[in-house]
C-alpha cells in the first residue's frame, strides 16, 4: 500500500521571546521535526513492514525544512517531496498546500501527526481529508490494516478507546506515545542528502484568518513564589499541605 506522511518542521521556543510584528522573531526559535510527526513516520514505517508498500514523506516549507524530510528518509521512508513556501499560522493553509501533491500521489493512506507543537491547530488531517474527499479519523494510537480497511484505535478524553474500522483511502492522525520512533543515525541522514527531493510550487490562497496580535500569556491570578533554599521551600510546601489537605 502507498502511504503518504505529512511532516512539519516546527519552531521551538525557549524561555525568551521577542515579537517581530505579528510573528515571533525567528532568532528565538530552534527548529526541529514536530514531535507528533516522528510518531506518524514510525507508524507509516511499521505499516509498510507489516503489509508492504511505499512510504512518501511530504512537507511544506523552504529549502531549510528539507532536514525533516531527510530525517524521514533516514528512518526508512522511500521518497520525499517538498512544497516550496512559507506558511503562516492559518489553520487550513497547510492542508490546502499539501492537497494537490498528495492527490497526485493517490495514496491508500495519509498519516499526519495529531497536531503541531507550534501552531497547534490540529486542523490539517480533517481539512486534507475534505480536500481529498476521504474519511478522517483523528488522534489514533494504534492502527492495523486488514482486507482493504484500516482498524484504528482512537484515544478519547479520559483514556477511553474507540475502535473503528475505516474504508481506504483515508486520512488519520497519530497521537504521541503510539509507538517508539526509531533512531535515524546522522550518517543515514547525511547520506539522505544525496537523495533528490522534488519541489512543487505552492498554490496561492487568501487565508481567511490572520494573526493580529501576539503577547505573553497573562497569569491566571497571582502565583506566590516560595523563596529560600530547598529546605525552606520544602518546609513551606509541607505547611501548605498540612493546612489544605488536613
Amino acid at each position, binding site marked *: 500500500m502507498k502511504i503518504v506522511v505529512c511532516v512539519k518542521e516546527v519552531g*521551538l*521556543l*525557549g*524561555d*525568551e521571546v521577542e515579537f517581530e510584528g505579528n510573528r515571533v522573531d525567528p532568532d*528565538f526559535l*530552534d*527548529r*526541529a521535526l514536530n514531535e507528533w510527526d516522528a510518531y506518524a513516520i514510525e507508524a507509516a514505517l511499521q505499516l509498510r513492514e507489516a503489509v508492504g508498500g511505499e512510504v512518501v514523506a511530504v512537507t511544506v516549507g523552504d529549502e531549510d525544512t528539507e532536514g525533516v524530510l531527510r530525517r524521514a528518509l533516514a528512518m526508512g521512508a522511500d521518497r520525499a517531496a517538498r512544497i516550496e513556501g512559507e506558511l503562516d499560522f492559518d489553520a487550513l493553509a497547510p492542508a490546502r498546500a499539501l492537497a494537490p501533491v498528495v492527490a497526485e500521489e493517490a495514496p491508500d493512506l495519509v498519516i499526519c501527526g495529531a497536531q503541531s507543537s507550534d501552531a497547534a491547530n490540529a486542523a490539517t488531517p480533517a481539512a486534507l481529508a475534505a480536500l481529498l474527499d476521504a474519511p478522517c479519523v483523528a488522534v489514533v494510537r494504534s492502527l492495523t490494516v486488514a482486507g482493504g480497511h484500516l482498524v484504528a484505535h482512537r484515544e478519547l478524553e479520559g483514556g477511553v478507546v474507540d475502535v473503528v474500522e475505516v474504508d481506504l483511502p483515508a486520512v488519520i492522525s497519530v497521537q504521541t506515545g503510539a509507538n*517508539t520512533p*526509531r*533512531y*535515524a*543515525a*546522522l*550518517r*543515514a*541522514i*547525511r547520506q539522505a542528502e544525496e537523495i533528490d527531493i522534488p519541489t512543487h510550487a505552492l498554490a496561492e490562497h487568501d487565508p481567511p484568518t490572520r494573526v493580529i496580535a501576539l503577547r505573553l500569556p497573562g497569569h491566571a491570578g497571582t502565583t506566590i513564589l516560595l523563596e529560600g533554599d530547598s529546605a525552606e521551600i520544602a518546609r513551606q510546601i509541607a505547611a501548605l499541605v498540612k493546612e489544605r489537605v488536613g
Partner: protein
Amino acid sequence: MTETRATFAQMGTAERALWYGLAALSLVVFIWGCIRLVHKYRAGRKVERRPSVGLAATIRIVLSHSWIRRRATVSGLAHLAVFYGFLVLFAGTTILAVQDDVAKPLFGFDFWRGSFYLGYSLFLDVFGLALVVGLLVLAGRRGVERLPRLIAGRADGRPRRGNAIEDWVFLGALLYLGATGFLLEGLRDAEGAPSFEKWAPAGWLLGRGLHDAGMAPHTAEVIHHVLWWGHGLAALAFVSAIPFTKGLHMLAGPAGVLTRETVAGKQLALDPIGYATMRDFAPAHLLQLDACTRCGKCHEACPATNGGMPLSPRDLVLDLASGALQLLETGDILVGGMIDQDTLWSCTQCMACVEVCPVGIEHVPIINELRRGSVARGDMDTRLQSALETIYTAGNSFGESRRKRGRWAKELPFEVKDIRTEPAEVLWFVGDYASFDPRNKRATQAFAHLLAGAGVDFGILYDAEVNAGCDVRRVGEEGLYTELVERNLKALSACEFDRIVTTDPHSFHTLRNEYPQFGGNWRIDHHSELILELLRSGAIVPCRTLPARVTYHDPCKLGRYNGVFDAPREVIAAVGAELVEMPRSRNNSFCCGAGGGRIWMSDTARPGARRPAELRIDEAVALGALDYFVVACPKDVTMYEDAIKTSGHARRIELIELSELVLESLAPVDSQA
C-alpha cells in the same frame, strides 16, 4: 675426560627415529595451528591502522616485562622468572638440536663440551629453578590467595567454568615439564655420573638424594628411559597445543603489544561503519582477542565492573575470543546476540582497561566500534536516543535554547568578551555542563573571576558554541560527531585568538586530539594549566594559604588520556593546601562513571550496588579527615556532588572545583575569627 654427555643415551635407532618423527609431527601441527589463526585474523575487515608501538619498543616491553609488572609486582616478577626460565630452557633444547642435528653431522663441529657444556648446564639449572619457583608463586596466587581477577566470569556476570580448568592444566603442564626435567637430571646422575655434572647442581643434589634413598643405578636407568619419553611427549604435545590453548598467549601477547596503536582509544578511528558482526573486526583486534591471558587486571580496574554493572572488559574479550571462529563463519550480529545491550552500554570509555593491559588489547576501541555498529542500526537505550536527538536539534545535551548558553556570563559583574566579534588572546571553550548546569555554573563563574582578576584577555563563543562531541563520539554516533565538529570548526575558524583554554576535560581531549583529524589545529590547554601559568607569573597571588587538607581526583580525560597530572597538583600546592593522594591516583585514577555517554543513559547496575562515584568517595573518606574533594571536570562536579549525598558521607567531605579553590585562596580572610 671431556665434559659432555651423550644425547639419546640408551636409545636405539628405532626409538630415535620415532622421536624425530613425533617431533616433526608436533611441528607440523603447530604450524598448521598458526596458519589457521592467521586465516582467522584475515577473515576480518581490513582497516587503516594508525602507527603502533613499534618493534623496538615491543622488544623492550616484552623483555623488561614493564607492562606485565605494572600494578602487579609479585605476579609480574614471578612471570618474569617463568618467562626467562622457559625461554632459556627452550633455547637450550634448540642449541642441543642444532649441535646434534646440524653442526656435528654436517660440519663436524661439536661445541657442546668443555666449559661451554658446564656453563650451559649451570645456566639451564638456574633458570629451570626460576621457572619452577615462578610457577609455584603463580599457582599460589591462583589457588591459595584466589585473587578475584583470576577467576574469569562471563560479561553478563554468569560464571565461566571452562577457562579455570584450562588455566590449571596449562600451569600444571609447565610445572610437570620443569619438575620432570630436574627429575631426569637426577635420575641420570643416580645412574652414575661424572663429577663435573655438579655444574648442574639441582640435578646433582636430586641424584644424590635418589642414590641415598637406595635407588639402584639400573632402576634409575629404567625410570629415566620411561620418564624421558614422559617428558618428551609432554613437551611435544605442549608445543603443538600452543595455537589451540592458553599457550597461544606466548606468541599473541607480544603480537598484541606490537599491534597496539599508540593513539588507541584516545584518537578514535575515522571508521563510519563500526562492528556489527565479527567479520567487521580489524585483523589486529581479532589477534588481540587471542592475546588475553586472563590476568584480570582490566576487570579489577574497570568502574563498571566495580559498580555492579553487567560489564567486565576481561569477560567481554573472552566471550568474543571464544566465539570468534564460529561468529566469523555465521556472521551473526554481535550486540543483542552474544553481547548484551547492557554490557555494551555500561562502558564509560575511561581507558583504565587499555592502560593496564599487559598484552595491548584495545578494549575501548573495540567497544566503541561495536557501539557504532549498534547506533547505525538504531539499536540503543531510549534515553540515549533522546539525548542524541536533543543534541542534534539544540546543539547541547540539556535541550536548552542556544541563547541560554552564555547566560552565566551575563550574570557576572563584568563583561565577558564575545570572541565572535572581538579578537582575544584566549578563546575559552566552555562546554555544555559548564554552561548550563546550575552547580557547574558556579565553577565557571569562579574561573571567569580568576581570569578577569588576572587581566587575561579572553572571550567566549556564546551561542555559536555547540557540544564538542567527545561523548557523542564515544557513544558511537560518528555522523553526529562529524556534524558537531563541523559546526564548531566553522565557529572557531571565524574568530581571532592565540590559544584555546577549556575547563572541560572532555572538550579538551577531543579538541586537542581528534579535531585535527578534521582540520582544526590550535594550541589548547586545560584551565588548570592556565591557572598554574598565572600563579607562576604572579598574575594571581593567593593572599592566604588555605589550611585545607584535600584530595584530588584525576579526571580520566585529563589524566589517563592526556597525561596532565601535575598542573592541578601544583595549583593545589601553590594555594597552600595539603594534598593527600587516594590509593588510585594519576593514571590509575578511578572513573566517576559519567563518561562514554553514560551520564545520558539509564542505570544498568544491579540493585543495591554501590556506584563508581560512591566507591570513589568511600576511597577519599578512608584517607581520614579531609576538607575538600578537589575536582577539575564539570562531570565530576555533577557526579561527586550527587555521590557525596547518596554515599552517606555528606557531612564528612565537601566538593570543590579547582577554580573555586583558587578563588577561595584569594578571598580576604574574614576578620571574624
